[in-house]
């Protein structure tokens, strides 16, 4: 059984991290990340062509995480595969021992490294959740009994800070109805908005894992504000990093404060270290989680 699901069900405060498969076949750097983050986390997300840029598949890379003794969260975007490919990859993932699934829509190819690619989006993330839940019950999306089903712990993305919230809330509730057991949220900068989301979504039974982004440098702040869709660093936090003598130390301090505040209202945190894996232990220790 998925240790992540187990921990969430027990009400344990969970920690998830994130590793990125390589562009190429050399797994050394990813393995290093897994070795650093794995022991600190309940599970590690393995991204799927993140930012619509080419990487080795999450399917193979998730298996590497598993073989190293840690629990992966297999990510699947709707951008690169049609309904046949999505379903066969879900079946493959289960037979490979991947027990956690995070479905996301996926960034548009126009923003990635292959802007000429056709975005597939045959199925959207809410529909894919419903399909995955059906597979957990032994059926494909046509409702046919399959020779053996899956048993994924199903996750989706939620966006507590992207207004209008009423639209986001309805969309999140539809995802829960479709089968989402947990949400990993976009990076949280405004604790009050996260609290609002928690208050309105948790009655549905879904678990909320809050996204924490290590704003390691003023350049990262600028990148998020100018290039990343669906996210903005509030001015006062951006200024804190920009004006800091040691921006990395400041970002660790900030993340620690955020994790501490979120311990009261979230079911867990999802830490996106943006390359500074070594800082994650410090953040968790500072927040009293290790």
């Amino acid at each position, binding site marked *: 059984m998925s240790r992540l699901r187990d921990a969430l069900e027990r009400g344990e405060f969970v920690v998830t991290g994130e590793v990125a498969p390589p562009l190429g076949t050399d797994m050394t750097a990813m393995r290093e990340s897994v070795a650093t983050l794995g022991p600190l986390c309940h599970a590690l997300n393995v991204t799927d062509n993140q930012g619509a840029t080419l990487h080795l598949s999450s399917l193979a890379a998730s298996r590497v995480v598993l073989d190293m003794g840690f629990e992966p969260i297999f990510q699947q975007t709707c951008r690169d595969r049609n309904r046949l490919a999505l379903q066969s990859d879900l079946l493959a993932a289960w037979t490979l021992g991947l027990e956690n699934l995070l479905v996301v829509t996926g960034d548009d190819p*126009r*923003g990635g490294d292959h802007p000429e690619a056709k975005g597939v989006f045959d199925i*959207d993330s809410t529909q894919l959740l419903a399909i995955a839940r059906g597979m957990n019950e032994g059926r494909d999306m046509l409702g046919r009994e399959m020779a053996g089903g899956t048993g994924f712990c199903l996750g989706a993305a939620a966006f507590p800070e992207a*207004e209008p919230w009423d*639209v986001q809330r*309805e*969309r999140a509730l539809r995802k829960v109805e479709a089968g989402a057991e947990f949400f990993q949220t976009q990076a949280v900068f405004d604790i009050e908005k996260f609290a609002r989301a928690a208050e309105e979504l948790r009655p549905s039974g879904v678990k909320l894992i809050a996204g924490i982004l290590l704003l390691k440098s003023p350049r990262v702040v600028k990148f998020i504000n100018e290039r990343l869709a669906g996210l903005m660093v509030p001015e006062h936090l951006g200024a804190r990093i920009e004006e800091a003598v040691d921006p990395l130390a400041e970002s660790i301090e900030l993340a620690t404060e955020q994790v501490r505040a979120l311990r009261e209202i979230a079911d867990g945190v999802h830490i996106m270290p943006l390359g500074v894996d070594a800082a994650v232990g410090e953040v968790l220790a500072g927040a009293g989680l290790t």
Partner: protein
Amino acid sequence: MIITKPREWDRILANLAEVDARRVFVMGCGQCATVARTGGEDEIAEATERLSAAGIEVTGWAVGEVACHSGGTRLETRRHSGSIDEADAVLVLSCGAGVQTVADATSKPVFPGLESVFLGNVVRHGVFEERCQMCGECVLDMTAGICPVTTCPKGLLNGPCGGMWDGTCEVVTDRECTHVLISRRLAEQSRGGASDRVLAPKDHSKQLKPGSVNLRGERGERGTRRGTAR
């Protein structure tokens, strides 16, 4: 209407060079390409000038009523058969459907003079917007008359996606997110639809190519409505 854009001129010249065309007949379209200002009389005059500058003689030109109408286009080519016979190739300033209709109506090599881009609404004179992709299974009943298949750049039926910020679209950042607009209008009209249910995956077999509709009966009479649409 069908929206067309000028095609790269170098590519047109290269096409003509391939068949060694020294003399060319130019055809436009009196409907969409005229309104889109890509294949009307003015644009034909412009093309004629450019062809002459490239040392290609224009043997004649015509703007038929509707280039994609088989009967009309056949008539038009017959009417100009003299100058078409004199030409080595025909250049058609219309959408791809019109180009093919002309190619069926003459034995000369026929080349596209435009790029066909979308089925467009005329927002105002000279401003066109894509609002429908003719998916064969309309969901406008559930989306308050706003098409997510077309106007959401990802074509998501259930949204918004994670790139939406402050009601603005991730991909086309000067537009509002389609799904926010849908939710707003549904709420204004106190309706459910896309706001309170998950729309099912689209049936793409409804738009399998090539589409065909036949409103004639088996013996070819009009209006018996026994034809099938795919």
